[in-house]
């Protein structure tokens, strides 16, 4: 919503600058988006008066005009039909600059010297009117620089009006806010409607409301003898300043009154309204209607239609119809000013995808008592600026009168909510300054809410009204409030912190990625049905990720394409899928790890050691260990997005995640050439298996005995099986088995590998003897020989 400083001054007295007004209304609750100054894109145009007009020989339309521009008289040749002696006009003189960089020069037309140009509004960029010259008000002195005149004082304040303040979608509403801090009261314009007392509106217009729930009030007037033509400069200029194009006097007047009062109006060509009858009803099933914008719209049974005796003529409160619009030849007008049900307007506007200046006001709730004022204001202007005469009276069909909201405000409640007491007299003053009716009985303030404030409906609303005028910044913050601790523990939060601390500790960079993703990129990772967005921003953000792996791959691709080749990344984030499509969904929190490139990029000591499968596996093992998640194991898996290097991670036998190497198909899909390892864990499953308590295990008092054993093994025997067998055969004092060395190669026969294990023995009760350990070792060797046919390497 834009207002100009000059326009505000029509209704309220104040002496502040635009910047000062902006600051004050901001602190009163109207958010100012910015202040701009009206700018016209021309120069060298002066106000002049035509003194004589003669026809140019050899021309059927050109005139030779003498124009008094104050200090001199210019001869100008002009082709416009409305030039006449005594007319005040804008004259572009030699060297003038017009919009679109047109520079004017003196010229000779049909043998007549022309020292300038009398301009139309279109030539000056003021409106679309191009067939006639712009007619200026007679009071403007000759010789005035038109640009300076137009731009003077036109500071435009743009306000971002919140959804609760339809009153401020009219300049008078904003003026009311200005009146509060400038200590004055708003004066609405006064006027007389020129009526023909012989003609009564009831004989010309009949209004029937069939759906009063959607149209509680409909008022109308009849105006005849209207001449459609250009608007006067003041009107065109005022509308242009707030961003509305000047079209013609009738359209401009309805827009002007809407901008002034916040009440949308609609003017019908009376001659298109069958029987002068308006029927307001809900649309019929499958009814369709062509609105002013030439779009045929399909209606539903809740759309509120304005019809005549035969046909629909407007989509009520939203847009008029093509069949009844004002044209250049219109002379008789049926003017509508109504109150439509806000919910219904909004519903229809949403459904049609059609939001207009009109619908935006009706859906927030217009001033139900201001309907007639706006009707009369526009009628008076039709008469004044369009030469019209109104029939006597107006139709006011108002089946169920809307009563003013009555609320009580207890000063004690105000103190409870705000934390400070405000004097009852001050409360009264504030509410009165906002045009509330106030009546105090036994220290309770009884209020009738003015009809232009539909947002005020409960006691708290009044408290806010008082507080915002009292000044939020005059309420001192209470920084010493007694704090009642909310001591309920949040284990999810602390677990999440721990996960992030450990992950960064083992070298992973934390990333934050978009939840929205391209369908094709999430599909390969989705075991269940993925969830798509019904109204996506674009095709590449049309799905919710069902796994964090594609998100991490997108980040990997971004970096690989920018010469960042080695990195480890992690993210904690949510994933989504359907359990029952369209009905039941699941949202899960996952942790993703991604590693690619060299383990220690940029480290001179070991430059080329690439991150491998077992690095990521080791990170996961360490990670689980640090989290105090026990009984971690790995199982074979068969994910279609990994190559043969892949595993499930299990805890107590339950699957909680996976790790593996991205296969070629996925690499192709994501346009990645590098080898990439990823792991994904289920956050809540992991949390379930975390042991929060730690108890101390005493350190062994008796010395340990260490032994190393090397075996020669077929390459396809998994180390895990051998370790399991060693544990099995090792006896009660075997405490640790670790793979210490693995090698293949020249010294070893083909298809064999050498594995060296480090074994640790100890007892908590006594020092073990070498013989006890020797016997365990020989049992291990025997057992491996028998069960796996594995021999000690000699």
């Amino acid at each position, binding site marked *: 919503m834009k207002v100009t400083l000059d326009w505000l001054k029509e209704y309220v007295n104040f002496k502040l600058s635009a910047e000062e007004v902006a600051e004050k209304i901001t602190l009163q609750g109207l958010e100012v988006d910015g202040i701009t100054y009206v700018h016209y894109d021309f120069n060298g145009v002066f106000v002049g008066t035509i003194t004589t007009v003669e026809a140019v020989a050899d021309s059927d339309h050109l005139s030779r005009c003498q124009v008094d521009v104050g200090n001199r008289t210019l001869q100008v040749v002009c082709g416009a039909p409305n030039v006449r002696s005594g007319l005040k006009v804008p004259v572009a003189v030699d060297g003038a600059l017009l919009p679109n960089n047109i520079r004017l020069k003196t010229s000779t037309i049909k043998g007549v010297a022309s020292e300038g140009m009398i301009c139309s509004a279109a030539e000056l960029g003021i409106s679309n009117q191009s067939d006639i010259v712009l007619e200026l008000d007679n009071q403007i002195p000759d010789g005035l620089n038109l640009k300076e005149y137009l731009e003077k004082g036109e500071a435009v304040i743009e306000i971002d009006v919140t959804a609760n303040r339809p009153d401020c979608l009219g300049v008078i509403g904003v003026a009311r806010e200005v009146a509060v801090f400038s200590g004055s009261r708003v004066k609405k314009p006064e006027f007389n409607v020129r009526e023909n007392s012989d003609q009564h509106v009831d004989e010309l217009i009949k209004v029937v409301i069939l759906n009063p729930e959607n149209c509680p009030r409909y008022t109308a007037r009849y105006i005849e003898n209207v001449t459609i033509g250009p608007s006067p400069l003041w009107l065109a200029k005022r509308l242009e300043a707030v961003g509305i194009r000047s079209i013609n006097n009738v359209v401009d007047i309805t827009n002007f009154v809407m901008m002034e009062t916040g009440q949308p109006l609609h003017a019908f060509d009376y001659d298109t309204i069958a029987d002068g009858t308006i029927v307001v009803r809900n649309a019929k099933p499958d009814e369709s209607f062509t609105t002013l914008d030439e779009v045929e719209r399909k209606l539903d049974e809740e759309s509120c239609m304005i019809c005549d005796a035969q046909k629909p003529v407007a989509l009520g409160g939203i847009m008029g119809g093509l069949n009844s619009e004002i044209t250049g030849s219109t002379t008789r007008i049926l003017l509508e000013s109504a109150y439509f049900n806000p919910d219904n307007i909004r519903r229809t506007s949403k459904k049609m995808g059609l939001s207009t200046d009109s619908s935006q006001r009706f859906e927030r709730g217009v001033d139900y008592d201001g309907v007639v004022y706006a009707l009369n204001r526009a009628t008076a202007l039709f008469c004044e600026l369009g030469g019209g005469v109104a029939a006597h009276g107006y139709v006011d069909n108002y089946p169920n009168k809307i009563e003013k909201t009555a609320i009580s405000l207890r000063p004690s409640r105000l103190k409870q909510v705000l934390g400070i007491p405000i004097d009852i007299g001050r409360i009264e003053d504030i509410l009165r300054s906002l045009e509330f009716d106030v009546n105090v009985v036994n220290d309770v303030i009884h209020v009738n809410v003015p009809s232009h404030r539909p947002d005020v409906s409960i006691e708290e609303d009044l408290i806010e009204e008082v507080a915002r005028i009292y000044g939020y910044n005059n309420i001192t913050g209470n*920084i010493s409030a007694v704090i009642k601790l909310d001591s309920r*523990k*949040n284990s999810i939060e602390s677990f999440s912190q721990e996960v992030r601390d450990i992950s960064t500790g083992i070298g992973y*960079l934390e990333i934050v990625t*978009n939840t929205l993703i391209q369908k094709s990129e999430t599909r390969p990772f989705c075991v269940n049905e993925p969830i798509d967005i019904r109204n996506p921003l674009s095709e590449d953000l049309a799905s919710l990720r069902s796994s964090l792996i594609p998100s991490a791959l997108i980040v990997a691709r*971004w970096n690989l394409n920018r010469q960042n080749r080695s990195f480890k990344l992690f993210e904690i984030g949510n994933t989504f899928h359907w359990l029952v499509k369209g009905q039941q969904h699941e*949202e899960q929190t996952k942790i993703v790890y991604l590693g690619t490139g060299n383990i*220690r990029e940029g480290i001179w000591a070991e430059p080329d050691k690439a991150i491998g499968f077992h690095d990521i596996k080791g990170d996961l093992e360490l990670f689980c260990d640090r989290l105090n998640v026990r009984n971690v194991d790995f199982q074979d898996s068969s994910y279609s997005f990994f190559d043969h290097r892949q595993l499930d991670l299990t805890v107590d036998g339950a699957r909680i995640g996976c790790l593996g190497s991205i296969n070629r198909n996925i690499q192709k899909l994501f346009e990645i050439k590098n080898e990439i390892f990823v792991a994904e864990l289920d956050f809540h499953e992991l949390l379930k298996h975390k042991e929060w308590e730690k108890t101390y295990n005493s350190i062994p008092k008796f010395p340990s005995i260490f032994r190393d054993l090397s075996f020669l093994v077929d390459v396809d025997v998994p180390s895990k099986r051998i370790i399991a067998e060693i544990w099995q055969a090792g006896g009660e004092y075997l405490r640790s088995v670790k793979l210490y060395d693995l090698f293949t190669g020249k010294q070893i026969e083909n298809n064999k590998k050498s594995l060296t294990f480090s074994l640790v023995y100890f007892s908590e009760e006594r020092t073990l003897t070498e013989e006890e350990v020797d016997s365990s070792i020989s049992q291990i060797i025997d057992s491996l020989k028998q069960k796996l046919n594995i021999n000690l390497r000699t």
Partner: protein
Amino acid sequence: MDQSLNDIIQQLQDIRTQFEKEIEACSGAEVLEALRIKYLSKKGIISGYLALLGKVAPEERPLLGQQLNELKSLAQNLIAERVEGLQLSHRTHTFFDTSLPGIKPLYGRKHPLRVVQDEIKSIFTSMGFRIEMGPELESDYYNFEALNIPVNHPARDSHDTFYITDNLLLRTHTSPVQVRTMEKFKPPIRIIAPGRCFRKDAIDATHYPTFHQVEGLVVDEGINFADLKGIILAFAKKLLGEDIKIRFRPSYFPFTEPSAEYDFSCFKCGGTGCRICKGTGWIEISGAGMVHPAVFKYVDYDSEKYTGYAFGMGIERIAMLRYQIDDIRVFYENDLRFLQQF
């Protein structure tokens, strides 16, 4: 036997003195080797005396043997010591490049959005707030209706919502956690709820379809607007320093009444006006207000007994201001050269 045992022992002592003198003066590996040959080789001085051992009286042999062994091991030890010393000093002479960069262990970093979020969380937890969370895929009921934003409410216009079905949507703010928390617990409530939100905004330097907020909610007997201002002020000071000022402007949210927007004094210019605050001296942070009685009704709280305040803030916005980041997209690109700065 022409020499007495005493003479021999005296000679051995002289040899020892001489050896000590020579090894003291010895300056290189070659000289040291020559010394070893002179004293310890088969034809060396000490070996010569060993040959005498068979010629002395049997009763004198142990003493002489002991003396000779002592001398021999002394010589051996001293030479070995010197050899080692020479090797060490030899090493300091070959170039050892101490200027090579230190070998750093790999250490990850937290994402700047998380760093800021962590800081906000720790400020509020230090003031007795607990952390709550809610789903990102939210129902219409929690995202709108129970927050006093019924169907067809114009305030829905400012929430460009991504819908999955008629009733299922991506939450447009963290405020649904208010309702979920009040459904779960009775007052006192003192929580913050950090989390991800979504709006259907075209991507540009200040808009991204996903972003993060922190919601705050305090409900108890005797909670009021002055407390809200107090907590925001305390937060601002803890986040940005003692000199920071706050400003409240009346605003509108359907789920709070009275409602406010709050600003911080510009932490770049201190309030005199600069590019960051667009000359106003204030930086818009977010919205706040007293919980609307209609919201209490949805969760069955007695609004005559309990009052509460709620506030929000945008993590991206605070992170952008703090690190002077001028394009929100960098947070979601996750370029290493960006991540490694935090």
